[in-house]
C-alpha cells in the first residue's frame, strides 16, 4: 500500500475525530443549522420530485393508484381508529370518571406545530426523520411528534435552529411506556432494526388479543397518557417465559411521512427529576 494512501487515511481519520470532538461540545451546531436550513427546501423538492419513481420501484405493479389508494385508506383507517379510541375513552369516562381524568389529561389545551418531513437519517441503523421546524419555532428536544391523525410518531431527538431530527418509535433506541387500552396491561413499546414494534414486559398471563389498541401509559413522564401508538398484531406466549412477546403495528405509515404535528404544550419530565 502506498505511503501516500496511508498518510491520507490518517489525515481523514484525524480530521473526522477532530470534528467529532468539536461537535461533542456544540462547536459546529451553527454550521449544521445553517446547512440544514439551506438544504431543507432543496431536499423537500428532490423528495417530492422523485416520490413517484420511488413508489414505482417499491410497487412494481399498478404503481401510483394503488399507492395513493393505500395511503388514503391507511389515513382513513387511522382516523377511524383514533375516533374509536376517543369514543372508547369517553365511554370509560362514564364508568371510571376518576381514573379517566388522570388518563386523558388536558387535551383541549394542547398546542401543536405543523411541520413537513424533508429528509431521513441515511444510515440503516436508525429511524429518524428531519422536519422543517426548529428552536426558532419553539421546538425543543424530547417534544412529542404525532401524525395529523393524532397517533404517535416519535419525539424530537435534536432540535437545531430551523430544523429538527425526530426519533421515530420504530427506531431501535426508542422506548415508550405503553398500555393496552382494553385490558390496561402495561409494558414498554420498543423499536427494532427491521422497523417493527414490540411491546415488552407484558406479563405472560395478561389478556392480550390481536387488534387491541396500544396507547402511551404516561408512566415515567416522558409521554402524556393516551396517545395512540398502534394495534396488536400478534401475541406470542412461550411456556417457560415470564413475559409475552407482543408485536405492535404502528397506526401511522412511518415510512412515508410527509407532515407531522409537534406537541409543543407537553414538556417531558427530566429523567433525573424526582
Amino acid at each position, binding site marked *: 500500500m502506498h505511503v501516500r494512501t496511508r498518510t491520507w*487515511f490518517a489525515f*481523514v481519520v484525524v480530521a473526522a*475525530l477532530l470534528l467529532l*470532538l468539536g461537535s461533542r461540545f456544540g462547536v459546529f451546531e451553527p454550521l449544521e443549522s445553517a446547512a440544514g436550513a439551506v438544504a431543507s427546501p432543496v431536499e423537500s423538492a428532490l423528495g417530492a420530485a422523485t416520490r413517484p419513481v420511488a413508489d414505482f420501484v417499491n410497487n412494481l405493479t399498478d404503481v401510483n393508484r394503488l399507492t395513493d389508494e393505500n395511503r388514503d385508506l391507511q389515513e382513513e383507517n387511522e382516523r377511524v381508529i383514533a375516533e374509536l379510541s376517543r369514543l372508547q375513552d369517553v365511554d370509560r369516562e362514564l364508568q371510571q370518571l376518576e381514573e379517566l381524568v388522570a388518563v386523558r389529561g388536558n387535551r383541549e389545551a394542547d398546542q401543536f406545530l405543523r411541520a413537513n418531513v424533508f429528509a431521513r437519517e*441515511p444510515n*440503516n441503523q436508525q429511524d429518524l426523520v428531519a422536519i422543517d421546524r426548529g428552536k426558532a419555532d419553539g421546538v425543543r428536544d424530547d417534544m412529542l411528534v404525532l401524525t395529523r391523525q393524532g397517533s404517535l410518531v416519535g419525539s424530537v431527538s435534536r432540535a437545531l435552529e430551523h430544523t429538527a431530527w425526530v426519533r421515530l418509535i420504530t427506531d431501535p433506541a426508542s422506548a415508550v411506556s405503553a398500555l393496552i387500552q382494553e385490558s390496561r396491561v402495561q409494558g414498554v413499546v420498543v423499536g427494532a432494526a427491521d422497523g417493527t414494534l414490540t411491546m415488552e414486559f407484558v406479563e405472560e398471563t395478561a389478556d392480550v388479543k390481536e387488534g387491541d389498541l396500544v396507547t402511551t401509559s404516561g408512566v415515567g413522564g416522558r409521554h402524556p397518557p393516551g396517545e395512540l401508538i398502534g394495534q396488536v398484531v400478534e401475541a406470542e406466549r412461550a411456556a417457560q417465559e415470564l413475559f409475552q412477546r407482543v408485536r405492535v403495528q404502528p397506526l401511522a405509515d412511518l415510512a412515508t411521512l410527509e407532515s407531522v404535528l409537534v406537541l409543543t404544550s407537553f414538556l417531558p419530565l427530566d429523567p433525573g427529576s424526582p
Partner: protein
Amino acid sequence: MNIAAGILAVIVAALLQLAVMPAFSIFGVHPNLIIVLLIAWMATRGPQEALVMIPVAGFAVGLLDSQPLGLAMLALAPLTLMTNVRELRLVESDLLPAVVLTVVATLVYETVILLSLAVRGERPEWVESILDVLVPAAIVNALVLLPVFGLIRLGSLDLRRQRAF
C-alpha cells in the same frame, strides 16, 4: 469530468441520500448512494479524485444527517485504503473489484455506525443488525453499483481514451 465534477457529484449524492434514497426500500434497507458513487468513481477514474471526494462526502453527509459531524467521515475513511485495489489489477475487469469493494465498504460503514451507537449507550442489537441491515445493505449497494458504474464509465470516455494513447 474532473475533481470539481466529483465534488459536485458528491454534494448532489449527499442531498439525494437524505431526501430520496430513504423512499427506496429494497430488502428492507435503503441504498447508500455515497458509498456506491465513491467506489464507482475510484473504479472508473482512478484513486486521485476519489481520495479528495471521500472526506468531502463525509463532511457533506455529516452536515446534513442527524449524527455528530465527523462520524460519516470516519465511517468513510477506510475507503481511502481501498483506492489502490484498482492499481493491483488482480483481475482484468474494473467492475468485479468494484462490486467486492462496495460490499466491504458497506459492511465497514454500517459497522462504524453501529459501534458509534454502542459508544453512545444506545445498545444496538448486533445479531439483528448484522442479519437485517448489514448483509442486505451490502447486497443492495452492490446491485445499485451496476447502473452508477455504467453511468460514470460512460461519462469518463475521454479519460479512458487519453489513457489508451
